[in-house]
């Protein structure tokens, strides 16, 4: 019993990770619009085929309403012919008079079960006669609050264009880096202690084991990130400052292990590798926290495209993301403890061998 009480944080870690995995695979996706195919015939009738994701168009299709809206102007056109082909396919027909301004239109669809769905730049219309619009009688004013509403859908992950289902990767990718930072931080602190007290073999071993586990989490972060890049950017690896920084920092810390293997004297090894690890930690900070902010990056969270804004992380994702961060850090700490014990035993065996 006392063991359980002493190791409560390990149980908490396992519980959190189990919770995270359950949520990742069980929580449904929210609805959204994927793409539109537009055809405009000679009479100025635009037929739009909309494909959607996780929507319920067949539920009460008579109540579906669709609007085209000109960006920022408040000019809207209501759709007069809506056919719900399947739950996720919708055919719309709009009347576009000759006087319609040449511009790109956003599409809004109101469905009873899904709320208002939004597809930017769904239609780009070039009228035959290039005149400034004077007669705007075919349009209606801006949409009222009743026409644009958010449906309370229960627990779901938010729909994001291009990311779609792969948003489930978030609690598996981002916490890896948090855990790596945490472990490298332990390595940093232990390296300082190694340098302060000479012949401190314990803190050197602590630094070694934390960095070993940290590299492991870094590799996991690279793998999950690579998988995610394949589905959102279309390639397993893209040349991007954030990605380069991540790979290079893992390489730098692998250099730490190489450095250790070249030195045979244990106290010298402790001192030199501590110096290197202090150096590596600062470069890690520069690479992952500072440099990507100054350069252009595809990766969210950098160069003015924030990762933790309300658009990226809504309440349902937060409910999974924060437990995931804590859970992975606890698991990482546990792995670090195990590695430390193994390393200490290794040292013991080594010193016994030397006595014999």
């Amino acid at each position, binding site marked *: 019993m006392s063991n359980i009480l002493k190791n409560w944080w390990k149980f908490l870690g396992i519980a959190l990770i189990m919770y995270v995995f359950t949520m990742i695979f069980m929580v449904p996706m929210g609805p959204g619009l994927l793409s539109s195919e537009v055809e405009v015939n000679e009479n100025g009738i635009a037929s739009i085929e909309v494909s959607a994701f996780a929507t319920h168009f067949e539920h009460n299709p008579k109540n579906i309403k669709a609007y085209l809206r000109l960006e920022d102007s408040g000019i809207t056109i209501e759709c007069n012919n809506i056919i719900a082909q399947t739950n996720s396919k919708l055919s719309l027909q709009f009347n576009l008079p000759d006087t319609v301004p040449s511009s790109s239109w956003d599409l809004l669809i109101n469905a009873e079960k899904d709320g208002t769905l939004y597809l930017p730049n769904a239609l780009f219309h070039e009228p035959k006669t290039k005149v400034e619009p004077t007669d705007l009688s075919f349009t209606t004013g801006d949409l009222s609050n009743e026409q644009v509403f958010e449906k309370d859908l229960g627990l779901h992950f938010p729909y994001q264009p291009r990311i779609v289902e792969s948003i489930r990767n978030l609690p598996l990718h981002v916490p890896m880096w948090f855990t790596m930072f945490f472990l490298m931080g332990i390595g940093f602190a232990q390296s300082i202690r190694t340098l302060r007290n000479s012949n401190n073999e314990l803190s050197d071993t602590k630094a070694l084991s934390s960095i070993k586990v940290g590299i492991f989490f870094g590799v996991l972060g690279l793998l999950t990130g690579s998988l995610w890049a394949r589905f959102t950017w279309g390639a397993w690896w893209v040349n991007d400052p954030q990605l380069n920084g991540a790979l*290079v920092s893992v390489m730098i810390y692998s250099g730490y292990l190489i450095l250790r293997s070249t030195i045979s004297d244990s106290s*010298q090894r402790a001192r*030199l590798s501590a*110096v*290197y690890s202090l150096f590596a930690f600062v470069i890690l900070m520069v690479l992952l926290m500072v440099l990507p902010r100054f350069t252009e990056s595809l990766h969210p969270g950098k160069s003015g495209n924030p990762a933790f804004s309300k658009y990226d992380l809504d309440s349902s994702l937060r409910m999974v993301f924060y437990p995931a961060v804590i859970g992975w850090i606890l698991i990482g700490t546990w792995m670090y403890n195990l590695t430390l014990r193994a390393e200490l035993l290794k040292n013991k065996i080594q010193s016994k061998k030397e006595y014999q």
Partner: protein
Amino acid sequence: MVFYLIKHHLKMDMRSFHNVMSLILFALASTYAVLQVLGGKPDPNTWNAIAWVILLFTAFNSASRVLPEDITSVRYYMHWTVPPRTMIVARTTHQSIIMSLLSTLLLFALGLFLGSANMNTLSIYGFLAGMVFTSIALSSTLTLLSALSARAGAGYGLTAVLGLPLIIPIIMISTSFGSDLVAGVEFKNTVQNLYYLGGLSIGIGVYGYVLFPYLWRS
């Protein structure tokens, strides 16, 4: 003391000039080899990449030179006569001076063999300033690393293995600075990269200053 040491290092360089000469030859020969490989003048972006890669390898070559104080007997003598922090300041400054001269020479060689990548005079001076700043940043990193690998008894191979990933932030800033210049961006609009490089070399220098005594004592 620092000035005396720098002067001493430079004097030693003059005495065994073949060491410096080999570095100069390396820079010239690799530029010429690039000319032969490309078979003509490269486009500006390639020119930029070639310039930084040659500078990088010249820096590695320069850092891998065996300095007198890395020889064990001399090191014991230095131990009792020179404080370690004076030592690292002198070594870094000496290395920076040598590398700055080498980078100037390298730019001449690049201009001679590979053309000037359509840069105007001001941009070329800017590029030179970038090369000097990069040289200083590279020197402060590689001096510390070569001291580290000399103490580990592993030599040049270890400097390269540990150094290449570590200098990537520097090279990333330098290449973006250079590619701005060859793309025709005015010097004053990309000068912030030089500030980053300066800040980075000051940071690394201070870090080396703090850490070197731990490397040095045995």
